[in-house]
């Protein structure tokens, strides 16, 4: 089975993709409205929290971090899928990535933008957040370079700017196509400006390839380091359940995992909404699903490694946290995480489900639920069962404020993504053409070979 049908004419590709930029359907507006409403909920909650103090989120001593940090890690994790698809697979010449990497990259950028907000929301004194940046000042006050939280801030900023650059650079030839096919209005101006005078000359293509490859190479270690640093927030601390050496790879695996799951979800949605059946084919979906399955098993393995290393370390406190996770207040969520993260993906091993769209949609959502729970299960149980038993478990159930902001973050992400889809081509036209081009050439070669007979 071929990834896409090679008979598609280049012009048709342009028309099909550019059509997705045109008049939105009613459903689009509905989704947009829902997304904005969700953001409104979050903004309301945040305003309330800003006015009253963090207490309204129902955090306490010792439970000082809540869903904000968990969701922050979740969104950072999501961002890894784009890099995986566009950069890693690009280097590995996995051509099937071509029709779907664009939106995956957009997802990277937007989930990072969402994650960054959670850092802000989490701060007790949001209005002083700039203290954590190394900006020049008269008093020679620097942030604390020993703090993993500062590494975090730096890594995220770097990663965000690099991903935006990567997304943009990869989009330049497509922006030129847009410029050439749209003849008036603000779009024309926008595409003209953004396509940087792309003409498609040999020299431009050569420079483009080199640039794109360089950024891709740069981005891969960055992506790995970002999530390793997020893992350091925990691994560098002294708390039982956090102070785990295997956390960085575990976090990276978790990140790729949730990213892939999210790609499946968005794949299915875009395929349906924009009628991209010809480009986002079941064959590609199947490959994505297989990749997801593989990562899910890696994640499961690393999970087991973590449990085993805690268990055999004979560190009483860490062990107690592990037992608490499995049997205590958080047990339902923890087992749900195991179920969603390690049991549900087993479905993906069966061939007949690998292309079954309703099943895949449900599974991908469950996987992401599992991955969100994973982050929460990293943050919360350590607080409720730390070194100091006197302070164990007060009432730490997150209040509506925390839930509202977490809920709203999905609206924010949706909004950004929806806007992106209507302004920029969410399928890479020039790269899909490459796939078609190769086939045409091969056919021609085949034909000539036949003629030779």
């Amino acid at each position, binding site marked *: 089975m071929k990834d896409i049908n090679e008979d598609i004419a280049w012009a048709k590709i342009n028309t099909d993709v550019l059509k997705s930029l045109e008049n939105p359907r009613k459903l689009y507006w509905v989704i947009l409205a829902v997304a904005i409403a969700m953001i409104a909920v979050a903004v309301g909650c945040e305003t309330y929290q800003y006015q009253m103090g963090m207490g309204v989120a129902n955090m306490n001593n010792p439970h000082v971090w809540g869903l904000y940090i968990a969701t922050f890690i979740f969104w950072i994790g999501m961002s890894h899928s784009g890099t995986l698809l566009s950069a890693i697979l690009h280097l590995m010449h996995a051509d099937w990535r071509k029709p779907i990497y664009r939106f995956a990259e957009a997802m990277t950028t937007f989930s990072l933008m969402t994650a960054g907000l959670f850092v802000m929301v989490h701060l007790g004194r949001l209005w002083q957040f700039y203290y954590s940046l190394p900006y020049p000042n008269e008093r020679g006050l620097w942030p604390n370079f020993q703090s993993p939280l500062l590494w975090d801030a730096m890594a995220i900023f770097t990663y965000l700017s690099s991903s935006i650059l990567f997304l943009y650079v990869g989009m330049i030839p497509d922006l030129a196509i847009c410029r050439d096919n749209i003849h008036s209005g603000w779009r024309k101006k926008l595409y003209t400006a953004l396509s940087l005078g792309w003409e498609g000359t040999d020299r431009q293509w050569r420079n483009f390839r080199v640039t794109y490859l360089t950024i891709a190479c740069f981005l891969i270690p960055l992506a790995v380091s970002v999530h390793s640093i997020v893992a350091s927030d925990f691994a560098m601390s002294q708390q039982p359940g956090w102070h785990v050496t295997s956390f960085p790879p575990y976090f990276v695996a978790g990140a790729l995992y949730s990213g892939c799951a999210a790609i499946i979800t968005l794949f299915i949605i875009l395929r349906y909404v924009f009628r991209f059946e010809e480009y986002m084919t079941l064959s590609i979906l199947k490959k994505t699903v297989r990749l997801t399955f593989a990562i899910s098993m890696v994640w499961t393995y690393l999970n087991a490694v973590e449990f085993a290393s805690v268990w055999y370390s004979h560190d009483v406190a860490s062990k107690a946290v592990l037992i608490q996770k499995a049997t205590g207040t958080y047990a339902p969520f923890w087992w749900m995480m195991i179920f969603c993260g390690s049991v549900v993906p087993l479905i993906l091993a069966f061939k007949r489900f690998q292309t079954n769209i309703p099943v895949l949609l449900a599974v991908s959502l469950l996987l992401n639920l599992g991955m969100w729970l994973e982050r929460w299960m990293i943050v919360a149980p350590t607080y409720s069962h730390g070194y100091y*038993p006197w302070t164990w478990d007060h009432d730490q159930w997150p209040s509506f404020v925390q839930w509202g902001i977490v809920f709203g973050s999905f609206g924010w992400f949706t909004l950004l993504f929806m806007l992106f889809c209507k302004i920029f081509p969410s399928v890479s036209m020039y790269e899909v053409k490459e796939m078609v081009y190769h086939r045409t050439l091969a056919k021609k070669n085949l034909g000539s070979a036949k003629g030779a007979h």
Partner: protein
Amino acid sequence: MIAGNAISDRAKDFPKNFAKGFVMMDSSFDRRDFLKVLGWGGATVALTGCGFTSVEDGKETVVSYVEATDFMVPSIGVYYNSTCAQCDAGCSINGRVREGRVLKLEGNPASAINRGKLCGLGQAGVQHHYNPDRVREPLLRNGEKGEAITWEKAYALIAEKLQGVSGEEIAFLTGAMSGHTKVLLENYLASFGCKNHFAYEAIAPGVVRAANKKAYGVAMPRFNISKAKLVLSFGADFLGSWVSPVHFSQQYGQFRKGADGQRGVLVQVESKMTLTGANADRWLVVRPGTEGILALGLVNALGTASGDVAAAVKDYDRARVSKDTGVSVEQIDKLVALLKSHSPSLVLAGSAAEGYAHGSQNAAAINLLNQVLGNVGKTVVGPVSVPFPQMSPVVGNTAALANVSDALDAGKYKVMFSCGVNPVFSAPTAMKFQEHFAKVGFKVAFAHYLDETALQADLVLPLDSALEDWGTSVPEYMAGDDAQINIQQPLMERLHANTRGFGDILLALLKQRNPESYKNYTDYYAYLRGAVLQNKNALGGSGADDDEFWDASLSNGIFKLAGSVANLSGSISAGSLSLPNAPVADAQYPLHLIPSVNANLRDGRNANQPWLQESPDPLTTIVWDSWVEIHPKKAAELGIVEGDIVEVAGKNGSIKAQAYLFPGIHPDAISVPLGRGHEAMGRYAKGFGVNPFHILDAVFDKETGELAMHETRVKVSKTGQRVIVVKDEGAAGGKQMGKKIAVRLNTDHVDLSKEV
């Protein structure tokens, strides 16, 4: 250093340096000017800037900080000595004042009672003073409301109501009283020929006083805890709320170190663990009411008694005692061995022992044990008494409440004054005090807050806080070798312009009766100063200049006098000792209700001080609410878990509160803390918790007539509601989960003599 009653921050530690420092207090410092300035003389300066001063109407002038008086230089703390009024122990306090505001209270190291230490209750004295719910104007009842009136009108009204009323028809209900206010009060009552002064304290060792009087000849001997090698306490919570807890705690610190490295051993016998019980080396749980039986059993087992004592205890063999009290024979043997080896010891009878109908017998049995052990004269010694009987304390008790309630019921009084007590809150409903109180024609309440009793009054007179008022007092428990008279002086200017000191009001009322004798005293301050100076020779100031002596006295905060030491009676007699058998189970009301006394909240008069509400109960760590302590076994039997709202029902009503499973209580008993459950008294007290005073049965000690607080029987049932108990303790429930946090070791593993 000159006679400064105001010494600065620095000066407190380095008096020598002080004179050189930038805060100069030269020897021409004039106390009278100082008083004038702070508003204790005539004209005053607005120091607090809190409004309600007479600056606006030109009676006062504002003094700029640029030329401020030396004792109120901005940012320099000044210390004044005074006396704590949060309970009756009479600890001396040292208040830090800055820019005219009192900020913090410390203990005065010169006092033999607290030696520079102060408990949480005492610390919260500033919250009594700054309490936003204080009464600020005299209030006259107008229907259901109080109408603000002037003091002139209030005094005139009292005079009018007292017109043609005989001395027998007037009653004055107060708490414990001593010093010059007591003198003035008695003079006032004497002017009517009135003998109806009732001193009521809801929680007082009334029975123990009587038993001590019988056994030792004095109501309150001195207990030398620090000299005892073993303290055996029968329910005396001397580290928490009993008699003079700061003094005892301070002694306890020494007792644990031991003079010669031999650490003192504490054994506590009670049915509900108190703070003292929680600190005991051995906490012995006994069946409620059988403390006396155990004491007699120990006397018997010691085998040293003879004569009528031996005869009185011969029936109390170990097997019977063990059966009655629930204390094992083995434990009794150990205790006896320890009593023999650790001499001198000290045996204390506390509120848990005295709270029964046979409380006097219990206390007598416990005192007998002390006598038999030969502790009298060693760890129980004669107290020093102040040579001025007129000033010596009138101690409060609950028998007084019963008396006054009966007399009110009989309609004996037309005018009644109440000061410093809140019987509507603290009297059992069964005594119908509120109903009886309503029969009085004119009720005057002297009050800091609108508490339950003040709300029933016809006229409420707002009092100065203890940190604004002048006074003297004589502690009931005289801790030191010298007799001590405590001085109370204002630590800052009156916060509210229209409150008055109790002494000032009494003086004004006395002037109505007897203008000639008191005309020389413009106010209570003048009276007090006059009184002190008149007698300065006896107070240790012979030959001193009046002003200097007065200033020095205020600076010290106490008068120390060579008082006479009372001799304790040496005779040991089992006299009329007859203890009832162990109580039988009551089918309808199977559980004993033990109303517990929390060191901070006591009888509830301080419940509106938020630090105390938020200070966790030491044993349960619960805050801001009441609870029902129940043994986990009993709870399992009744299907109760922590947080269940349970109904505690007795013969005289019921209360509903959250259950707390507590291992330190006899399974046949439950305990509810006193002090919470106010229906008035302001934002920090009203509506928090329940009031177990109200469901107490009106059972009295047979000899003294004191309310038997522990005699109430109740039943407990679930209501079906459940709450989360608000407490400091986390989910681990006071377990250390294998971690080395609070560690304990046995005596044989320690050598205290080598420690610093």
